[in-house]
């Protein structure tokens, strides 16, 4: 009977979906577990505080942590103001017009450019043309360009959710546009913007291709913005490919995963809190 076929199909389909979905999710989590399992035992305080010795075979990853922090810091310092400024402009100063459409198009396209192209650009522009050499500055500026779309879209979203009544009241009380923005809109949108910045940090930490081409791969502790430096993900990549030390590779990988997870978990928690706050 036709009734039974339908329910049979449904049971089969549901079973397949259950199996497929569960095994997929399990597989993805297993990938992380594999690295964490081998890598966590390697992590101890010395691992984080010692500098790499013998090309990374011994010692820790301290210089790479410094490199990662420095690069991310440069990227945020340059990228966040640009991104938030763009978002403010798009949301507060224009309507949907030719200008805003052009800007959005630019942002969208930038979001889709692969990281190796950013690396090529950073290499030929910052390293060679502006003669900054392989340095934290070159890498940081390239990273800033990469995180720009993320910052713009999150800042825009969070500014968008602020009810116009806030602005109306401010204007009716005699505030100028800029006053309204800085005293009413931005403070309310700040958690969302901050979350976007956090997510950009998460992305910067994991970025490899563009960094190798612009910040180099020197293991020495960087002493200035113009020193080359190795980030954790670059170090991990090099350790893994050259077979220098599997143990160190696992350890760096585990540290990388934990760091990225931590940043993103905080960001997610902030999002949830922010949403609950506003609704």
């Amino acid at each position, binding site marked *: 009977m036709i009734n039974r076929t339908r329910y049979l199909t449904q049971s089969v389909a549901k079973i397949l979906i259950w199996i497929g979905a569960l095994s997929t999710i399990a597989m993805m989590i297993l990938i992380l577990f594999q690295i964490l399992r081998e890598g966590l035992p390697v992590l101890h305080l010395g691992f984080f505080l010692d500098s790499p010795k013998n090309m990374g075979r011994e010692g820790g990853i301290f210089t790479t942590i410094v490199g990662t922090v420095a690069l991310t810091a440069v990227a945020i310092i340059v990228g966040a103001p640009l991104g938030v400024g763009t978002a403010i402009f798009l949301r507060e100063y224009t309507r949907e017009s030719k200008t805003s459409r052009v800007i959005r198009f630019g942002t969208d396209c930038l979001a889709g450019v692969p990281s190796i192209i950013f690396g090529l650009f950073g290499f030929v522009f910052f390293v060679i043309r502006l003669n900054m050499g392989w340095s934290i500055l070159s890498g940081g500026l390239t990273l800033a360009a990469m995180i720009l779309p993320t910052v713009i879209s*999150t800042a825009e979203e969070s500014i968008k959710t602020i*009810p116009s*009544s806030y602005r109306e009241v401010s204007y009716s009380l*005699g505030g100028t546009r800029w006053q309204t923005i*800085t005293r009413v809109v931005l*403070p309310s949108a700040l958690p969302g913007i901050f979350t976007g910045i956090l*997510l950009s940090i998460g992305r910067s930490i994991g970025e490899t291709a563009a960094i190798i081409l612009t910040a180099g791969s020197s293991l*020495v502790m960087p002493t*200035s913005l113009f020193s080359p430096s190795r980030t954790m993900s670059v170090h991990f990549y090099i350790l893994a490919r050259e077979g220098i030390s599997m143990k160190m590779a696992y350890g760096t990988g585990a540290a990388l995963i934990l760091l990225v997870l931590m940043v993103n978990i905080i960001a997610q928690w902030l999002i949830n809190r922010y949403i609950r706050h506003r609704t």
Partner: protein
Amino acid sequence: MQRTPSPYPSPPRGEGKGEGRFGHWNFVFGIYLEFGLPARSLSLALNPENGQTHLKPTFCKQNAPAKAGIWNLGFLFLLLFILFPMGCQRSKAGITVAGSTSVEPFAELLAEEYMSRHPESHIYVQGGGSTAGIEAVITRAAHIGMSSRNLIGDENKLYTVTIAKDAIAVIVHPLNPIENLSLDQIRNAFSGKIQNWKELGGSNRPIDIVTREEGSGTRESFQKFVMRKEDINLGALVQDSNGAVRQVIATDPKAIGYISLGLVNDQVKAVTISGVEPNLRNVYNRKYTLVRPFLFVFNGEPAGAAKSFLDFVLSPPAQKLLLKEGLVPVLQEPD
């Protein structure tokens, strides 16, 4: 900028622009699409409310200056104004050594040793390949270039110093029964004329050739000494450093490749070539001929910190270090 106390009534639910029924979801995946394509337009598409309808308010002109928030824009421009002029200078305190990835691990060891003896110095070792290193010296992007091949043509105007000699070893998996190969056999294996190990005396398995990438000094030396006029097969696996080649061979019993002798460890096996074992003694008595120089390249006479490092590299303790690592020092003969 103080937090404005909120005299405004709290907004009723759903008044914000981004809140469709699933407003917060749009917010969320606006963020998570950073790896991909148009985040925002996607969120627009899935947001039931489209377009912009917010009011454009008129406002009175005020005399009160807007202090708040201008500082971060000012900071940004200050940063930009500082950055660009500074871009022309670079840190004078350190020297950059860039080039061949074959020389790189040894240069790093030497740099580590040098910096422990001279704590105030900074030496940054960078890979990139022989060609890139030479170019970096020409453009002064690096103070010292590392090369694992001889200079050609125009490059010869640069000042070069041989810091060591390195042999190229042909390696296979430790469990591979082959112990010895002739130069012809190696050439035929790499060109693809021979495709199965059984033709070389091994088991019946296809040969996986591993080579370095184009532009590598190691590959050029291999090409020059072994391949001569023939090309390495286009189907060969390509890796961009000696360590990576070694890794592939160490994990593939069917693979054959070539790396710097100094990098051979117990994860791979170096074959003897026509009976000649690749070791330092055979390099010295010229029996093993797959030898290439490791060069430090300078733009003009070395001076200052670069010269100081060069002097160290050519000194007996440094050369002894290189010897220990499997290179052939230029200064002394082994006993």
